[in-house]
């Protein structure tokens, strides 16, 4: 894929809001036909980076080239190549699904017949044909996300930016959207995906960048990132009692284990050596808690994320979900 030409070239991007540094010295390339993941917690600078790449924000420093076009000089020419699906569905509530798509097609200069045909094709492809004439305001959250993605690709963009496409929607819709993203990429569209679902990024992306506090901390292929987990052993214990406080005791008694509280009733143990479950179960039960499940886990990209960023992925996901449900749509 690195042999393909870069279609997004971000070099030393920086953005400040008053005294707050949102993005600092961010440099990366995304190659033609790639599905690139951009991961980080809330406030890490993901959306600010997307806004700079798409022209909704001006970088304080650095350069952006889209398909070789210098965005500081010819932003509108670059925007013609981009499709953008924001983190919140921002179509027009008073227009129908079909009219929304036709309108978005017109913004990119599609002629009437062309945009009408394309709108019908996308409605069918996204399983929204039956709701084509319904107002967007009456759509479910999953339908809104699907239509927003359809609006982002109505003009067949060369590069598609997807900001948290599956956040806050039901499992079936999320699965369908993931399949649609994979299909789009297979069809040749370069996809720039931000998500806080690390498993989603692991499943979809070929390369991933981790951004924390406005700085890129790691960028590599999923395969290379996963190699960092070779030789690691992970066990998850689920208890009937609260797990709070147990981690400290376990770390004291088993110094080779790294312990992390996953939820109120679950802990996660990681070690470079094989983890013996029996002594641990006895240790926990001696402290009055009953182990209901002990499961060996295959190390995942989430483990890599945690080890690189020091941020608990579960906490990041919860925080994001809370923010989404608070926002409404």
């Amino acid at each position, binding site marked *: 894929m690195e042999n393909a030409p870069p279609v997004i070239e971000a070099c030393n991007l920086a953005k400040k809001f008053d005294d707050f540094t949102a993005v600092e010295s961010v440099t990366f390339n995304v190659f033609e036909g790639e599905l690139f993941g951009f991961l980080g917690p809330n406030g890490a600078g993901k959306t600010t980076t997307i806004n700079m790449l798409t022209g*909704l924000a*001006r970088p304080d420093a650095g350069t952006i080239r889209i398909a070789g076009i210098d965005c500081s000089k010819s932003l509108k020419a670059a*925007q013609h190549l981009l499709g953008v699906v924001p983190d919140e569905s921002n179509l027009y509530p008073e227009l129908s699904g079909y009219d929304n798509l036709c*309108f978005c097609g017109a913004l990119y*200069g599609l*002629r009437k017949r062309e945009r009408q045909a394309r709108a019908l094709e996308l409605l069918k492809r996204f399983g929204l044909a039956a709701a084509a004439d319904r107002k967007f305001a009456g759509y479910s959250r999953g339908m809104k996300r699907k239509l927003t993605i359809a609006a982002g690709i109505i003009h067949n963009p060369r590069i598609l930016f997807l900001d948290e496409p599956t956040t806050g929607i039901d499992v079936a819709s999320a699965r369908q959207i993931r399949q649609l993203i994979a299909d789009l990429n297979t069809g040749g569209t370069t996809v720039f995906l931000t998500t806080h679902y690390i498993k989603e990024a692991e499943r979809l992306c070929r390369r991933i960048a981790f951004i924390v506090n406005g700085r890129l901390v790691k960028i590599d292929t999923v395969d290379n990132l996963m190699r960092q987990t070779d030789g690691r052993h992970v066990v998850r214990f689920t208890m009937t009692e609260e797990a709070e406080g147990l981690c400290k005791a376990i770390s004291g008694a088993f110094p080779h284990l790294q312990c992390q509280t996953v939820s109120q009733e679950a802990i996660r143990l990681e070690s470079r050596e094989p983890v013996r479950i029996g002594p641990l179960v006895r240790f926990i039960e001696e402290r009055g808690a009953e182990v209901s499940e002990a499961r060996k886990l295959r190390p995942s990209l989430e483990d890599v994320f945690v080890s690189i960023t020091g941020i608990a992925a579960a906490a990041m996901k919860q925080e994001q979900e809370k923010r989404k449900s608070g926002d409404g749509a």
Partner: protein
Amino acid sequence: MNRWVAFWSILVKDMRAYYLKPPNISWGLIFPLAWTGMFFIKSGGGIEDLLALLPGVVAISILFGTTSMLAVTVTFEKKNRSFERLLLAPISLELLMLAKTAGAILFGAVNAFVPVAMAVFFTDLSRVAWGMVVPAVFLIAVSSTFLGLFIAVSVSEVFEAQTFSNFFRFPMIFLCGLFFPIEQLPALLRPLSYALPLTYGTDMLHRGFGGASLMPVVMDFGMLLFFCATLFLISLRNIKRRWII
């Protein structure tokens, strides 16, 4: 890319989504009717005074029609982020804002002719200089729309846009010679009148409807064009500075 496809679609979308809604149509009918009735009763004159009232009623209909709509079509869309979709489109900001304001200009112009259409049944309009009235209506619609745009991009909430626009609109009713001649205003207020675009538009309307005018027609035209250009350019600068951060 044919950018006019985008321009036309934005205009048609705004017309369908906002301007042609029943509440706006009824607003366009009731508002001029109410103002005509109010000043007709206040003046205590007969039906022959109707022609003298028309410039003020036409001007106020345009002013309120245009400025009210921009708070919705621009501030509301900015608030719910659908405006971002327009900013991401590969069309220049100038063309985009002309498309967003074209609907309001048309709406204002149509509003202007509602009282004129009503007046046809009550008074003789054969002496009206349409060659003066029509350009005046158009220029008032454009300058009022751009004033509404200036207000809409200066705030972030719809209610702020409404409140802020009243800060301009209500004084303009009294300061721009709509119903009270500028010469009769206190000397201290008169400079304010000349700093408002509606003064020049109303002056053109008075001339067009056969009344007395204060300034040469070239000056009225020139000042209206100056206000249109200035307000539009300031609004564009504000959008670039405040919205494309």
